[in-house]
């Protein structure tokens, strides 16, 4: 685990322990160095003092050539355990006596070295002059092993180890106690932040523990929470206001729609009753015109008969107009009975009904496989009857009429069907007027009709939730499209000739 990823608590403990350990290490190192130097100096001092005493005592032994005496004097060194070897050389540099007596001569320097001491691997060695009344009588050699120093330093090492372990233990305990004062507020702050972000409750406040940086952080945190809370409140308020406004608007729309629907229904009911009521006088006109013809058959001249004929014809035409209007009105008011419908079947039925009009004509039919939709069968039948009827009607002046029924890929969940002919077509400028009631782009004498058919188509398709539109050009035919919301699209299609 990286240092930056471990918890703050442990970081603090580690920092404190490392600092303590470093401090202790430095202190102990300084202590050791000081002790080493002091001890070495003391050892040298000690050795030189002992040497001076021994040298002073052994002057007579040297002067009067008494090695036994000298040996005895050196024997006193037994009390100094760290002195492992000693020797006295006479003025000529010859070995005079040695200590311990059993020591091999080879273990001692063959000749005395220069006065002074030396610290080497074997320990401390020193050569000191033996003089009497400023007369040099010989040289004293002493060798002290460092065992005393070693023992002492082993003891120091043990003490230092105990001190370090003890100090670190104490530091650990203290750091554990003290780090809480630093880490606890941070942890609490973090915990508070977590709780707030989980519960989205901005009214919670972190507890401030003091005036230090963490205290300032807590203050800033609480201020921030306050600001967030305020903004949140304002946001909610404006949201509520917006919602209220929206509801109001919706309500108003509903009211208007209801008003509109009411007005529309009233209007339709009115037009229905008007149309219905108009039929009775029309029947009278037609009936009485026929009766007049029958009654005055012999008295009426050719001109009078023609006039009566025109009256009858007009009355019948007006009757058709009224019928169409009634049917248009009915299509707007009758409830839709929606079931799955195969458009292909409807097209076949309509073609059968159109046989009387297509008899004796050469028409190339191209009918693609049409999708299945959900809709009212009778009404959709009416749509195809109108569109195909128009196609047959407006292409009758062409010797090689071609009528195509196909589908296009529409938008999602939409089936687009078109009916295309190569007949008279229309001026695209007036394309939007095609679907209006009683709107006609060709004269009655050229192509008969009441001008209600396409209005019916539009009304039926709209009631199914679809759209209608048309493309065309004068003399080049027209294409009528309608779209219907469909079940999963099955708008595959090739062209089929009949």
């Amino acid at each position: 685990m990286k240092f930056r990823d471990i918890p703050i608590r442990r970081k603090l403990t580690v920092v404190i322990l490392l600092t303590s350990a470093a401090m202790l290490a430095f202190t102990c190192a300084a202590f050791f160095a000081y002790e080493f130097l002091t001890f070495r100096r003391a050892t040298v001092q000690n050795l030189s003092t002992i040497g001076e005493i021994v040298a002073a005592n052994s002057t007579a032994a040297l002067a009067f050539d008494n090695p036994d005496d000298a040996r005895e004097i050196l024997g006193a060194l037994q009390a100094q355990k760290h002195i492992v070897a000693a020797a006295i050389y006479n003025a000529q540099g010859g070995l005079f006596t040695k200590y311990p007596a059993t020591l091999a001569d080879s273990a001692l320097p063959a000749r005395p070295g220069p006065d002074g001491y030396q610290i080497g691997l074997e320990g401390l060695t020193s050569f000191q002059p033996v003089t009497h009344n400023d007369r040099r009588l010989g040289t004293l050699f002493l060798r002290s092993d460092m065992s005393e120093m070693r023992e002492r330093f082993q003891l120091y090492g043990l003490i230092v180890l105990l001190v370090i372990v003890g100090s670190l233990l104490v530091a650990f305990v203290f750091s554990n106690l003290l780090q809480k004062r630093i880490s606890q507020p941070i942890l609490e702050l973090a915990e508070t932040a977590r709780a707030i972000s989980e519960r989205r409750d901005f009214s919670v406040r972190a507890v401030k523990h003091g005036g230090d940086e963490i205290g300032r952080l807590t203050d800033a945190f609480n201020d921030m929470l306050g600001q967030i809370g305020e903004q949140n409140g304002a946001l909610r308020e404006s949201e509520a206001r917006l919602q209220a406004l929206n509801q109001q608007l919706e309500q108003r729309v509903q009211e208007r729609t209801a008003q509109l629907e009411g007005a529309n229904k009233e209007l339709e009911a009115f037009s229905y009753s008007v149309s219905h009521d108009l039929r009775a006088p029309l029947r009278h006109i037609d009936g009485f015109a026929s009766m007049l013809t029958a009654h005055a058959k012999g008295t009426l001249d050719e001109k009078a008969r023609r006039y009566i004929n025109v009256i009858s014809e007009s009355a019948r035409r007006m009757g058709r107009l009224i019928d169409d209007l009634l049917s248009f009105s009915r299509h707007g008011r009758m409830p839709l009975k929606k079931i799955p419908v195969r458009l292909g079947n409807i097209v076949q039925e309509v073609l059968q009904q159109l046989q009387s009009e297509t008899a004796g004509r050469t028409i190339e039919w191209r009918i693609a496989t049409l999708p299945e939709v959900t809709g009212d069968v009778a009404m959709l039948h009416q749509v195809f009857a109108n569109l195909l009827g128009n196609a047959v009607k407006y292409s009758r002046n062409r010797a090689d009429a071609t009528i195509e029924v196909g589908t296009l890929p529409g938008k999602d969940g939409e089936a687009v069907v078109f009916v295309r002919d190569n007949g008279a077509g229309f001026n695209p400028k007036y394309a939007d007027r095609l679907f209006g009631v009683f709107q006609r782009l060709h004269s009655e004498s050229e192509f008969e009709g009441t001008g209600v058919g396409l209005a019916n188509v539009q009304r039926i398709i709209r009631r199914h939730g679809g759209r209608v539109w048309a493309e065309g050009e004068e003399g080049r035919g027209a294409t009528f499209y309608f779209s219907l919301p469909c079940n999963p699209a099955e708008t595959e299609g090739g062209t089929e000739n009949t």
Partner: protein
Amino acid sequence: MALRVTKTNWRWLRRLQIAVAIGVMPSALTAPVPAEASEFHLSREFQVKAVFLYNFAQFVEWPPSAFDSPTSPLVIGVLGQDPFGNYLDEAVRGEKVNGHPLVVQRFRRVSDIRTCHILFVSGSEGPRAEQVAENLHGRSILTVCDWEGFARRGGIIRFVMEHSHVRLRINLDAAKDAGLTISSKLLRSAELVTGAQ
């Protein structure tokens, strides 16, 4: 090494000779002793004794009355027949002890002795031991001898041969009578006796 010897460290050479003499002694003892070797030993023995006489000056304190002045000479005397040849003169030549230059004087008779600090009483004085002892009694003279007769009559230090080593035997009472202070170090390396032997 002797080739490098010059006048200035002539004293060093002298000590070397002594050391050689001491070093050779033990081996000489174990071997059959020819007459010439014995004579050689004898001369070495006196060489050592001469140095010892000189060393006594270092380890003995005389009362201030023994010296006329702080710079007056310290006299090492030889009474009777001198066995040292020139060893003694060589040993003390140019030496000083506590500011007193060392001087060697030879006396034929004890009555000749005026100023003397260390006196070697030669064995030749045997027949006159009584007279000599009487004459020197009460004077601050460190008397040294190597024969028993005089030691018994008040001689302070006696050279004793022991395994061809020269050893010292010191009569503390005699030293006290003479008003001399002998260094404890010297006493340490000597055999001590008291009273008349």
